[in-house]
């Protein structure tokens, strides 16, 4: 540990953690034990919203006067978590913080619970299909999570999304652990349209198809099983005083963060001040201004997050959109999932559609197949669509097409988001 700290590696790197775990496989356990008098741990899991929720909590707790650190979003595997701890501690292993927030990857939650056996809080946000080549199928993940949280005891408060049937069901047979449910109770936000990329609409108890009286998005909503007594649990919290970010998915993230703040008795004015102060995390609705034009980046990494980004920017009357699709390991090697995104509902609303990334032609093809025209002569792809293999060129051209009073909305996958930011903040534009 001391050796890796000595190298003074930036917190973004995960290899100090790798070295620490190789030298001492109990590294995480040991360092938390050293600090257990003061440091409280918060784990945030879920397919979408981990980084934003973690950052919301961090901002509120900081307003409440606490010292807080959070692992970086790319560092959500065991190595990354160890690296974050190394970065935070001094040479004798002391961490000068009140709270450590760890967002954990789908596959890492069961592993981290072996290292941090009694975290103070575990928040589970949702479970959607994502990178099936890497994480496997959602039912399998839910089962692993279920097995991993069984051992949690009364030292832990488990905060679950009641509107996600698979997540709510995780809490069903738990004993000992303190359980809090969050969700939405707002008919005005409900949609009755079924999105295609929907998982887990079947009862985890008896297998019957669940009935929804309200759907907020994907499979999240007010649900009940028509056959057995499985139903959405009673909510402990269903609203936040304010919502700093757009989109229904961010309402969930915000309510989850507020729920945790309530457990810690953070004063309401600090909660509100924290939320008002909130600056989005990298690429999560982050706004950049380039040459007087507004650019907003909406990380869109799986069908549900892509659908919700589209719905949110359509609500903003977006005219210019740039989709950037990569297929490197953090994005998932398989890009088939773009066919589960409901592009059909939004494409007509946009004026300029630009595509780029390693798999630019795949997303172009997806958009071509939204063409409604049945005239054989004009079945060529959509005239609004422009394809640039080079991301820099795509961004330059997108900005040219965006008029001064308009905004450019960029929807990238994870690695594409990092590349986009690098180009935009590296001021290599135009």
């Amino acid at each position, binding site marked *: 540990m001391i050796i890796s700290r000595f190298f003074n590696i930036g917190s973004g790197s995960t290899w100090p953690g790798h070295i620490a775990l190789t030298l001492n496989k109990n590294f995480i356990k040991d360092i938390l034990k050293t600090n257990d008098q003061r440091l409280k741990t918060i784990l945030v899991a879920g397919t979408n919203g981990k980084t934003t929720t973690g950052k919301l909590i961090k901002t509120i707790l900081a307003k409440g006067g606490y010292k807080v650190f959070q692992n970086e979003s790319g560092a959500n595997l065991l190595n990354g978590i160890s690296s974050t701890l190394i970065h935070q501690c001094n040479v004798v292993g002391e961490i000068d913080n009140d709270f450590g927030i760890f967002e954990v990857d789908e596959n890492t939650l069961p592993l981290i619970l072996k290292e941090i056996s009694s975290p103070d809080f575990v928040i589970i946000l949702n479970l959607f299909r994502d990178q099936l080549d890497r994480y496997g199928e959602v039912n399998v993940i839910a089962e692993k999570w279920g097995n991993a949280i069984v051992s949690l005891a009364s030292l832990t408060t488990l905060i679950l999304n009641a509107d996600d049937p698979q997540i709510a069901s995780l809490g069903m047979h738990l004993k000992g652990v303190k359980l809090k449910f969050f969700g939405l109770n707002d008919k005005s936000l409900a949609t009755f349209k079924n999105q295609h990329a929907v998982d887990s609409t079947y009862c985890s108890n008896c297998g019957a*198809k669940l009935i929804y009286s309200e759907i907020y998005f994907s499979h999240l909503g007010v649900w009940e099983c028509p056959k057995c007594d499985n139903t959405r649990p009673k909510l402990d919290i269903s609203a936040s005083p304010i919502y700093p970010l757009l989109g229904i998915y961010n309402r969930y993230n915000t309510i989850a963060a507020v729920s945790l703040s309530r457990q810690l008795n953070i004063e309401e004015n600090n909660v509100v001040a924290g939320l008002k102060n909130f600056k989005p995390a990298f690429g999560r609705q982050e706004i950049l201004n380039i040459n007087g034009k507004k650019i907003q980046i909406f990380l869109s990494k799986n069908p549900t997050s892509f659908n919700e980004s589209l719905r949110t920017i359509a609500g903003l009357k977006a005219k210019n959109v740039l989709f950037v699709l990569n297929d490197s390991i953090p994005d998932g090697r398989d890009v088939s999932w773009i*066919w589960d995104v409901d592009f059909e509902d939004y494409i007509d609303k946009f004026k300029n559609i630009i595509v780029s990334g390693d798999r630019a*032609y795949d997303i172009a093809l997806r958009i071509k197949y939204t063409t409604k025209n049945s005239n054989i002569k004009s*079945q*060529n792809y959509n005239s609004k669509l422009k394809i640039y293999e080079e991301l820099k060129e795509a961004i330059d051209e997108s900005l040219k097409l965006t008029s001064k009073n308009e905004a450019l909305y960029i929807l990238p996958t994870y690695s594409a988001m990092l590349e986009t930011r690098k180009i935009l903040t590296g001021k290599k534009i135009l």
Partner: protein
Amino acid sequence: MNYTLYAKRYTLTIGWLYPELMSTYGDRGNVICLEKRCEWRGISVDIKQLNLGFHSKQLAMCNLLFMGGAQDTQQKIVSLDFSKDKIKALKDMVEGGIPGLYICGAYQFLGKYYKEADGTIVKGLDILDLYTESLGNSYKRLIGNIIIKVPHHVILGSEATPESPSLKVMRDSGRVLLRQDSGSLARLTSTLVGFENHGGRTYLGKDIKALGKVIKGFGNNGEDKTEGATYKNSFGSYLHGPILPKNPHFADMLIKLALEKKYQSPINLSPLNDSLEDKARDTIAKTLNIKI
């Protein structure tokens, strides 16, 4: 000028088996592709969504069938719903030459059985002569981009020759290859590209042929270089991508087969502009260092 009027005569009913349960990895792209490629040619399409509890008579009304992959839980729900009369209806259609495409989980499901790692046998529909074995979680799933080559008659019909004008476009695009084998006859092959992701290893019986031969990737079992299966006008495959938008010649073949079966006369589909499809295919071929 009469073309549009002429084409409007044609209608196709596409049966989509369990769209809510058997659809992962963008499988619905295949249905979208079939639908659009018909519409763009003036062929009316009716997509019948065959969900839990559908009647076997609804199946028999379809001219073309599609079924995608599923997660284990969903697949079990489907197994329970697949009653004897539904199995018989589907078997009759497959035997009667109604074209169908069955991807991943559906492909396994049409076989004789799926043997789990602990030896448990999960019975399949026993329509195709094949079986699948799972080696368990300690064995690697077969995951990655894949390219297979398919004998030309499978996709282009036995009457196609290297000189057929309709083949010229496909040859130029790399979707069809012309191979000169050691001084003998020129032979045509088509390539299919996609992405595979499966734990099960599928083995073909003697009454069924492979859809193609693996050029790059794993295929049915990672051992014998076969990929997918073809029996009469039914096709099984592990290829996602999804397979049809990536391989429009395969999509057109299914449409052509369905129309010819329904109207009992030869059909020539008008060509479409597939330049984007070809670029998307090229991207994968380049990644894999394969020339197609």
